[in-house]
C-alpha cells in the first residue's frame, strides 16, 4: 500500500518575521512567564507539618469496626479473605460468646490478622464485607521496625478504628451513615 499524494498533509514551520528572528522578544516573554511563577502560588505540601486532606474514600490502613456495644462487628464469614487477591487476611472463627448470642451473633473472629506488607490496598475486602465491618481508612503513613510489626492483629485493627473515630476521619461508608443491607442486626 502506497501513500497517495493527496493524503499527505504537509506541515511547515511558520514563517518568522524579523521580530521573531531577533529571538530577544521571545526570550523576554519567556522570562516574564518564569517571573510570574516566581511570585505565583506554590503547590508544595509541607508534609510532616501539614497533613494532607485526603478524600474519605482513600484506601489506606484497614480498620475493624465496632458495633454500638463496642464489640467487633465482624461475623467471621470469610468473605474478605476469599475476595482478597493478595491473600493477606487470616481469620480464625469461633462461636460467639453467650452474651453476644442474645443479640443474634453466632460467630465472631477469634483472631483477625492482616499482613499490611502483603496487602495491595485494593479495597476488595471492604466491598465484599456484608456487614461493613472492615474498612480502609485515610491513614497512609504506617511504619514499623520489623516485618512482624506490620502484621496487624485484631486488637491493632480495632485500635485503628478507635483512633480514626477519635480524629473524626471516618472512611466513606461509615461517614455516609448508610451501611450495607446486612450491616444492622436484624430486629427480633
Amino acid at each position: 500500500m502506497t501513500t497517495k499524494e493527496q493524503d499527505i498533509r504537509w506541515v511547515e514551520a511558520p514563517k518568522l518575521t524579523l521580530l521573531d528572528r531577533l529571538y530577544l522578544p521571545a526570550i523576554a516573554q519567556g522570562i516574564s512567564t518564569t517571573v510570574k511563577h516566581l511570585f505565583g502560588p506554590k503547590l508544595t505540601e509541607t508534609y510532616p507539618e501539614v497533613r494532607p486532606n485526603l478524600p474519605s474514600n482513600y484506601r489506606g490502613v484497614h480498620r475493624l469496626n465496632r458495633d454500638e456495644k463496642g464489640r467487633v462487628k465482624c461475623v467471621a464469614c470469610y468473605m474478605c479473605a476469599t475476595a482478597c487477591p493478595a491473600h493477606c487476611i487470616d481469620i480464625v472463627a469461633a462461636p460467639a460468646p453467650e452474651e453476644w448470642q442474645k443479640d443474634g451473633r453466632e460467630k465472631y473472629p477469634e483472631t483477625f490478622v492482616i499482613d499490611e506488607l502483603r496487602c495491595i490496598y485494593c479495597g476488595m475486602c471492604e466491598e465484599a464485607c456484608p456487614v461493613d465491618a472492615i474498612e480502609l481508612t485515610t491513614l497512609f503513613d504506617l511504619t514499623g521496625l520489623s516485618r512482624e510489626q506490620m502484621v496487624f492483629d485484631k486488637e491493632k485493627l480495632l485500635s485503628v478504628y478507635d483512633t480514626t473515630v477519635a480524629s473524626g476521619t471516618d472512611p466513606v461508608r461509615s461517614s455516609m451513615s448508610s451501611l450495607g443491607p446486612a450491616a444492622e442486626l436484624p430486629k427480633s
Partner: protein
Amino acid sequence: MPEFVLLTTVVFITLVMSVILGVVAYLILLERKISAWMQDRLGPNRIGLPLVPFSQSLGLGHAIVDGLKMLLKEDIIPKHVDKWFYIIAPSVSAATALLAFAVVPFGPSVAPPQPVPIWVDANAAGNETLIENAVATFQSQQSDYRSKTNFVIAPGLDIGFLFTFAITSLAAYGIVLGGWSSDNKYSLLGALRSSAQLISYEIPLGTAILAVVICVGSLNLERIVDYQINHGWLISVLPLGFILFLTSVFAECNRLPFDLPDAEQELVGGYHTEYSSLKFGLFFLGEYIHMITTSFMLAILFFGGWYFPGIQQLDGITYFIAGFAVLFFKVFCFILLYMLVRWTLPRFRFDQLMGLAWQVLIPLGVINIIGVMIVQEFFSGNQLILLILSLLLILTTTGLVSVNHTLQSRATISRKLYLNRLRDLR
C-alpha cells in the same frame, strides 16, 4: 603607578576571598530556591539558622550544611584515572576563577591619571620649564591618586580587562584536564564540548569588549568606569555590544542555554562525572565564582560599575557604602538574570550552539567593531549616532544572518525529495 602596599593587598585578598566563598554558598541556595519558586515549589526549607527569624522557611542553614556535606563526603579517586591531572584539575578550575577577580573594582574606584602630554619644540627655549611643569603636574596627580581609596586588589593595572579575559579562558584547562584525566567517555565528551564552546565564544566576547575599549580608549577597568561617569552608561551607546557580551558570557560560564559541557541528560555529569566530595565542590565553586566575576564585568563594562547619578554628592563613609550598594545591586540583578534564563530557555543542540557563535555572533561582533570605529573616526564618537547604528545593526544583521532561514529551506527540499520518491515508486 599606584603604590604597592602589602597590608592593604593582603586585607583585600582575604576580604574578597572570604566574601566570595560565603556568597557562593548562598548563591547555590538562592539558585535552588529560585528554581523551586519558578516551578511552583517551596524549595529547601528544612534547616534554618538559630535566632534568625524566617530562616527556616528560607532554608538559610542549607548553605552551611551543603558546604559541610562537600567537605565530609568520602573522596573517591577511581583507580583508572590519571591521578596527577585528576587532582590538579579542580584546583585549576577554582583558582583561575578566583584569580580573575584581581582586577575587578568591587567598590568605589578612582581612575589612574593619564600621562601628561607635552609638545617640545626642539629649537625653542624654555623646554626645561615645560618638562618641569609636566613632571610637577604628573607627580601631583599621582599623589592625589594615591591618597584615594581604591577597592581593587590590583589597582591601576593597564592591561586590566585583558588580564581577566586571559585568566577566565584558562578555566577551560581545568575542565579539559578533569575530563581527560577521568578516563571516562562522558567526562571526555563534556570536556571536548567545553573546549570547543569556549574557543568559539571567546571571539564574540572579545569583539564585544573591543567595541567598549575603542569607545573608552583604555583597557583599565577603573578608567572604563570613569568614562561612564563622564559620558553615561555604555549600555545606552552599545546595546548590541551588551547583547553579544551577555550571550557569550552565558556560554563561557556554561550556564543553561549553553550548558553542554555538563548536560546531565546526555552526559551523566559531564566533565565532573568521576569527581566526588570536595573536588566536585571545587568545580562547582569555580562555576559560581565565574558567574559572579562575569556579573561584575557586565555591571562594570555596560552599567557604570559602582556609579549611579548623584552618588558623587555623597561624602565620606556614605559614599563608599552607596558605591558598594549600587554595584552589588547591579551584580545581583545579573546573577538573578542568569538564574531566570536557566529556567526559561531550553538547551541548545551542539550544532545550533556553534551556529549561533560562528554564523550570528561573530559577524555581528565584527560589524559592531567596524561601526564603532567609523563613528569614532569620522563622527568624533557621537553617542546618538553610535546608538542608532547599534540598534540598526541588531535589526539588519539578524534579518540577514538568520539561522531559521536555512532551516526553512531545508524543509522545502526534503518535501520535494519525498514527492519525487513517491512518483518513482508508482
